[in-house]
């Protein structure tokens, strides 16, 4: 740490506001890279987009705030990010703000030390946000950050020191995520949510360093972003120049290091050069033909650490990712938020909120007794606020929420905590599961009885989904090209093909065990009725004992959703 940072700066509301706004902007730049890391190449609520929208909710609220109280600013950031949180990773991020707000509550200003402790609170909140932590995800990263930074807080490090340690622990944990989660390893990526958290902290650190060093934000680069390097090593040929096959990364530690000097020494030995840091530590990243020479040059400035040299030609073969900003091309869900609370009478004690996309599916949910259908799901995960509003819009004091998507569960859980009503979440992971749960709903039974019965029934249904790949991938030993038609059974990619109907039949064939009696198909907005009729004809001919039923679902992106039971 240099001397300037050792000065005890006092942080005001404006500083925190600035930190969040900068971190949000920083995040925005990396959003697409994070989206690209989503393991399944399916069009889904993307992690980068979800986290970015969550941060934006906080940023938007802060833009109009002019409070000097740091506690107040933290409180606004916490509330607004919580309401705007989307997707599981967004929810976890919002909890980080909640912890910070708790640490700063009632404070007009804070010392860097106090702020460091508040940030530590935030990380702990983020880790505790989830009831069933899965290792190898954003939670592993959050936990390791919490662990790594605990000592820093105890030893009275200021916020910059804390963030630096947090960042380092986060990166280390992130690198380990593929070892913890086989799906990541197979896909050759790190966890997207974990990366998002690291990127956010990096954004915070950058802003805080500006504050404490008094430098202007323009053109300042802290470290070569992890995002950038991942993109380069994993995203394939665009950035890969065969003249410079060795991606070389290292840290130089010393004193009085000069970023400019190191950069000028290295410049001629390769491309994609990034040199950044402070006078005690500098991070170097370069693509070169001569990694040995890079090491020699760097050793003249200080000691070398975390040396990593990869031959990108190897990586290109094993993990060639097509860049595809999936979220950009997603059509907005067509379904309006329709509140079709059919004949509300005094007996209706339990209301149901469900989340689905497509006008046809919304109608079906409504016909089965859902009181409120939130538009969302595969195309766009609803925010906590949308779920809160839906719950509050019902006249009933008890509400059941069906997320119908893995990535909406946390948001639903948080929404449940924010309302005064008694809320039970039935952990449905797909539209067919949601519909099966609806059928098990019994208005005369208790909330708890309904919750367990609905979940049990939902889990008895098999879900088939037919969509297209948003990028290349290799999953379950199936090589997938961008725009391939892919079929998923209960979230597992089972088949690929070129033709929608044929792929659907193949998926069905892979799923049938002979026990199933009824197939219910919901066709999406991009499928014509003649196309679905063709499909039904083919299936009926092939499986005469299977009862086949089809309905217009109107969902975007997914040609067919079907349930087998």
């Amino acid at each position, binding site marked *: 740490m240099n001397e300037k940072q050792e000065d005890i700066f006092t942080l005001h509301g404006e500083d925190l506001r600035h930190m969040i706004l900068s971190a949000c902007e920083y995040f925005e730049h990396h959003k697409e890279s994070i989206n690209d890391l989503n393991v399944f190449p399916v069009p889904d609520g993307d992690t980068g987009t979800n986290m970015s929208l969550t941060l934006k909710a906080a940023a938007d609220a802060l833009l109009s705030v002019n409070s000097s109280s740091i506690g107040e600013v933290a409180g606004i950031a916490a509330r607004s990010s919580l309401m705007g949180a989307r997707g599981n990773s967004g929810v976890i991020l919002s909890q980080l703000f909640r912890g910070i707000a708790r640490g700063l509550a009632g404070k007009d200003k804070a010392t860097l030390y106090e702020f460091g402790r508040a940030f530590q609170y935030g990380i702990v909140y983020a880790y505790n946000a989830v009831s069933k932590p899965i290792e190898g995800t954003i939670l592993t990263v959050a936990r390791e950050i919490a662990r790594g930074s605990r000592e820093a807080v105890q030893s009275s490090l200021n916020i910059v020191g804390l963030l630096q340690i947090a960042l380092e622990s986060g990166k280390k944990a992130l690198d380990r995520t593929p070892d913890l989660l086989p799906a990541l390893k197979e896909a050759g990526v790190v966890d997207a949510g974990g990366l998002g958290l690291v990127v956010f902290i990096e954004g915070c650190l950058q802003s805080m360093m500006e504050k404490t060093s008094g430098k202007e934000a323009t053109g300042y680069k802290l470290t070569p972003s992890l995002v950038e390097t991942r993109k380069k090593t994993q995203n394939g040929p665009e950035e890969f120049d065969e003249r410079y096959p060795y991606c070389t990364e290292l840290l130089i530690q010393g004193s009085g290091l000069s970023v400019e000097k190191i950069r000028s020494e290295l410049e001629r030995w390769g491309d994609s050069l990034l040199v950044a840091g402070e006078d005690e530590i500098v991070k170097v990243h370069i693509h070169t033909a001569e990694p040995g020479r890079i090491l020699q040059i760097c050793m003249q400035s200080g000691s070398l650490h975390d040396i990593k040299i990869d031959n990108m030609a190897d990586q290109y073969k094993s993990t060639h990712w097509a860049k595809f900003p999936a979220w950009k091309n997603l059509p907005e869900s067509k379904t309006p938020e329709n509140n079709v609370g059919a004949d509300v009478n005094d007996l209706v004690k339990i209301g149901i909120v469900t989340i689905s996309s497509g006008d046809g599916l919304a*109608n*079906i949910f409504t*016909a*089965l*007794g859902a009181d409120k259908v939130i538009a969302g799901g595969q195309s766009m995960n609803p925010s906590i606020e949308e779920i809160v509003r839906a719950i509050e819009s019902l006249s009933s004091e008890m509400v059941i929420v069906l997320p119908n998507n893995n990535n909406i569960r946390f948001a639903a859980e948080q929404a449940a905590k924010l309302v005064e009503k008694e809320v039970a979440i039935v952990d449905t992971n797909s539209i067919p599961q949601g*519909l*099966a749960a609806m*059928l*098990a709903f*019994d208005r005369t039974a208790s909330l708890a009885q309904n919750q367990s019965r609905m979940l049990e029934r939902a889990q008895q249904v098999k879900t088939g989904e037919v969509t297209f790949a948003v990028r290349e991938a290799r999953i379950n030993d199936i090589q997938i090209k961008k725009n391939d038609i892919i079929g998923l059974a209960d979230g597992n990619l089972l088949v690929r093909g070129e033709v929608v109907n044929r792929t659907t039949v193949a998926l069905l064939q892979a799923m049938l065990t002979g026990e199933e*009696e*009824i197939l*219910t198909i919901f066709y999406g907005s991009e499928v014509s009725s003649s196309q679905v009729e063709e499909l039904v004809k083919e299936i009926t001919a092939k499986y005469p004992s299977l*009862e086949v*039923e089809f*309905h217009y679902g109107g969902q975007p992106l997914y040609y067919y959703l079907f349930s087998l*039971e």
Partner: protein
Amino acid sequence: MAVVRIVTDSTAFLPREKMEAYNIKVVPLYVHFPDEIILDGSIDNKVFFEKMKKTSKLPFTSQPSPGDFLKVYEPIINNGDEIVSIHISSGISGTVESAATAARMLQTDRISIVDSTVTSGGLALLTIAAAEAAEEGKARDEIVDLLEQLKKKMKVLFVPATLEYLKKGGRIGGAQALLGTILQIKPVLMFKDGKIEVFDKIRTMKKAMRRMVDELPEKGQNLRITILQAEAVETAGILKELIEERLPGTAVEIMGISPVIGTHVGPGVIGLAFLQK
């Protein structure tokens, strides 16, 4: 001591031999077709459902008149005997009303009228239990008490092939909520507090049958089970197998339903009535 005679109505659909064996009197309801009025139970079910299919307008049904009850009650009372008269649920039929009116007209306190809160096979099981008790020489009050006890243990579940008939006949009750459900559903309906309510919503007939069988008690002791069906003999056979798998050695009887009930639930219905004493 006075002999207690058991009277029921045609919706119990007791086979003739049972009626004769227990000396049970049956008062019929009516089915009104545009061209003729049929006494419930006086026509073969196959013929009835054929006629129902052919008719342009669905038939409607009506309860027996108090006069119909008088015709049955009067000779028994005049003979010095007593009556326990058990009938189709007052929640779906006015039959109990007609019976009560008839009893009042006779100005006697020797007739007890019991609202079974069910019908069909459920009513049949209760009627036979009453007849057995009467045969054992139980007093009228004891039989009524017994019936009140058994009513609580009685369960009648059924799955109509379609809700159309219940809807048109106005007896749909709580199953009303299922109309307009876009997905194909095999609703498992039940009698609850004398009315038809939704027990569960199931997607396929096989699963619906399994759902009904799941409701059977764990053990088959003192258990009486009746399968109800209309134009669904094959399905009834499958249900029987499912029950026998679950409770080996328990006697399961397959019964039809009376045309009056058939008018309201439609052909293709399958049901289960059981009672554990």
